[in-house]
């Protein structure tokens, strides 16, 4: 940051500071969130976050009662948030049943929760998640700067994350925690760059025990640590430090579940989804989702093979192109995790790397990654909006009476209308948006393949001349 002359007044200093593009981006992002947070809330998930805090309050751990289905990290974060909500802000009620909207449970889409959280609880959770949006934006900014790019490009990366529609939607409307997992992953990478390996391992462990998907990127972290240490001894020391960080942290996180016999419940997020393959489908969408899980499972060998190859390519990259190749391989690895059609918020893990590749692009071929970026921004947001549809208005209806229950129920009824052969509008829209999201995911690989072919052609043309 540039130093200002001493004779500049405090007002001028503040004015110059506020005129920095990053501050403008930050303010715009905060204003957008401040408007959305109290108005739109997807209740299904956030109502379970209230349940999780309730478990902590009643001294029942995370898994002794029904209602918490993830690995412990998010539960611990919620417990911390509960302390703030209860002892600092004095939130007395977490939510109520939306009696007037009970009929929505009969809709084709089975994830309209009628347990509607109170606006104060919603604001508490979503504000906390928005802080992680800021942290993520700052970490992406730092990564761009660390690789030697300009402040302008780093600020652009900051803005692309902080103003990204699906990032805003995930924290300010959906109220779910994918950005916490992303924050810890980025932290682990930056800490590895700073050779703070133990802390890098700790952060990686937390990332993977928050939403599981970062675990797939262990190959890339390994490749980076090995590549950036030249001596055999330093390589071994670095890997051992990372591994110690990962294992000690995992142990500290999971020890209560191991001691209380709830270790398998702690991994319910993975096992429940895999075992759902055997379940009978109640609706067309259920059938699609059930078979979708089978596809996810079948794609795992391919995903692991791709992850291995990309980590190897990153490790073997030419010295002069290491940074560029490494981040491109990181992007492809973060995309290869999702060769299926994931929940839109899962793709928050891919977005930072795509943003990096786009803002640091210098050649025409690199700039092509703008297409997958736009496609991901648009498709994930539309897919979320389609799935949640009118349910994001429940809180506004119950607590603020801004929208009538009748309007919401009419909207849900319209979405549940069968248009052809058992296919409802809801399912049709979900399928279209899901297909668009899948296209966005595969477009990352498509751009890579096109770039590879054109560069090969260019090289052979040069040799021919």
């Amino acid at each position: 940051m540039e130093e200002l002359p001493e004779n500049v007044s405090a007002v001028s200093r503040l004015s110059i500071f506020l005129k920095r593009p990053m501050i403008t981006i930050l303010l715009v992002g905060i204003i957008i969130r401040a408007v959305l947070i109290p108005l739109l809330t997807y209740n299904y998930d956030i109502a379970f976050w209230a349940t999780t805090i309730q478990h902590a309050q009643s001294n029942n751990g995370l898994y002794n009662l029904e209602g918490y289905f993830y690995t412990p990290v998010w539960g611990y974060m919620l417990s911390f948030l509960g302390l703030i909500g209860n002892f600092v802000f004095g939130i007395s009620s977490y939510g109520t049943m939306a009696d007037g909207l009970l009929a929505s449970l009969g809709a084709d889409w089975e994830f309209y929760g009628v347990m509607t959280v109170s606006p104060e609880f919603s604001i508490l959770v979503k504000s906390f998640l928005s802080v992680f949006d800021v942290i993520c934006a700052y970490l992406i900014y730092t990564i761009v700067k660390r690789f030697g790019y300009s402040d302008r490009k780093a600020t652009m990366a900051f803005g692309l994350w902080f103003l990204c529609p699906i990032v805003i939607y995930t924290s300010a409307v959906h109220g779910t925690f994918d950005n916490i997992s992303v924050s810890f992953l980025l932290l682990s990478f930056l800490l590895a760059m700073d050779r703070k390996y133990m802390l890098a391992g700790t952060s990686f462990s937390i990332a993977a025990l928050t939403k599981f998907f970062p675990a797939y990127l262990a190959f890339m972290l390994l490749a980076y640590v090995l590549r950036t240490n030249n001596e055999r001894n330093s390589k071994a020391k670095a890997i051992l430090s990372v591994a110690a960080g990962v294992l000690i942290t995992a142990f500290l996180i999971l020890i209560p579940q191991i001691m209380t016999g709830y270790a398998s419940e702690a991994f319910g997020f993975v096992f429940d989804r895999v075992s759902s393959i055997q379940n009978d489908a109640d609706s067309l969408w259920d059938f699609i989702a059930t078979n979708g899980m089978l596809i996810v499972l079948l794609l795992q060998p391919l995903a692991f093979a791709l992850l291995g190859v990309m980590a190897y390519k990153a490790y073997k990259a030419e010295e002069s192109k290491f940074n560029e190749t490494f981040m491109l391989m990181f992007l492809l690895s973060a995309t290869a995790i999702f060769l299926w059609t994931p929940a839109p918020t899962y793709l928050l893990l891919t977005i930072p790397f795509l943003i990096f590749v786009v803002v640091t692009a210098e050649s025409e071929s690199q700039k092509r990654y703008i297409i997958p970026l736009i496609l991901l921004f648009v498709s994930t947001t539309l897919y979320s909006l389609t799935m949640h549809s009118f349910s994001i208005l429940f809180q506004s209806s119950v607590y603020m009476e801004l929208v009538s229950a009748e309007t919401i129920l009419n909207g849900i009824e319209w979405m549940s209308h069968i248009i052809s052969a058992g296919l409802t509008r809801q399912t049709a829209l979900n399928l279209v948006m899901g297909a668009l999201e899948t296209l966005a995911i595969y477009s990352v690989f498509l751009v890579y393949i096109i770039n590879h072919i054109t560069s090969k052609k260019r090289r052979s043309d040069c040799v021919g001349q």
Partner: protein
Amino acid sequence: MLDNKNIIAAIAVVLIAAMFVGEVAIYVKNPYSYDADVVWDEESLEYTLTASNNITYDLLVLDNEDSVPVTELIICSNGSGYFDRIVNELTIRNFSNVIMTDSENIADMMDEPEGKAILIPYGVFPKEIYNGNSTDPLMEWFAGGGSVFWFGHMPSNGYVNEEYLTPLGLSEDDFCTKENYSSLPSGMFCKPLSLRNSLVYNGLKADAGTPLAYVSDDGFSSITSKKVLNGSLTVFAGGHTYENSMDCAQLISAGVTADSVLSKHVTGEVRGSITESVVFGTEIIPENNSVYVYMGGYYIVFGKRF
């Protein structure tokens, strides 16, 4: 001033610390505590509530007439962890007199039914206690004033005899046999007890007994209480759901019987300690009344019956 490397390390340390503070608050040093006490006077009752944090409370006074609220629960477990969670839900509500058994041993425990209840999982009744005959041990249980909480499921034809439900005063037509949902809260306990289950699939018709929670447009009820001989049968629709685990614990802990009438319902907020009174205006016989206090509304963290 901090350089960027230190800022990154500081962010990591702060976030990691936040997570571990959350873990410690759950498993090592839980900062939450709640309690309640009730003292009867001739025409009023005085209640004292304490809470570590700001929280809503509900106080219900139930007139049970001659019926005896449940003070002992026998769970006929099918081995599912679901029943352990119901026990934990009951513990939150200070109901600890629970016996866990299985279908093979339950008959041995069915003596002195008054004030006792049996919790039966989703599916047909254990054959050791009920086969559709009016002389079965379960019918003797009802005759002695015992209660049964059942997670429903209409028995399939062929699996049981046609008259299977007759001694219970039910028929196949009383059950909801298709996926269906409620549209309205019903009865005097739904809102005061913050009941949640709104599924009606496998539940009973509302008019087959007393609907306690929610009812569908076509007249099915999510939780129905029915008088059977001198006892009561409460049927939960929807099976072993998360909502049912809470509602089941709530109804048992509150001491709701088929004859219970809600005579007072008081709500408010507590932080620290408060002492308030409920005035009835007429002389009250405490033996016929039970008082149930719970905190947290739909997110219950404490309950106690007096």
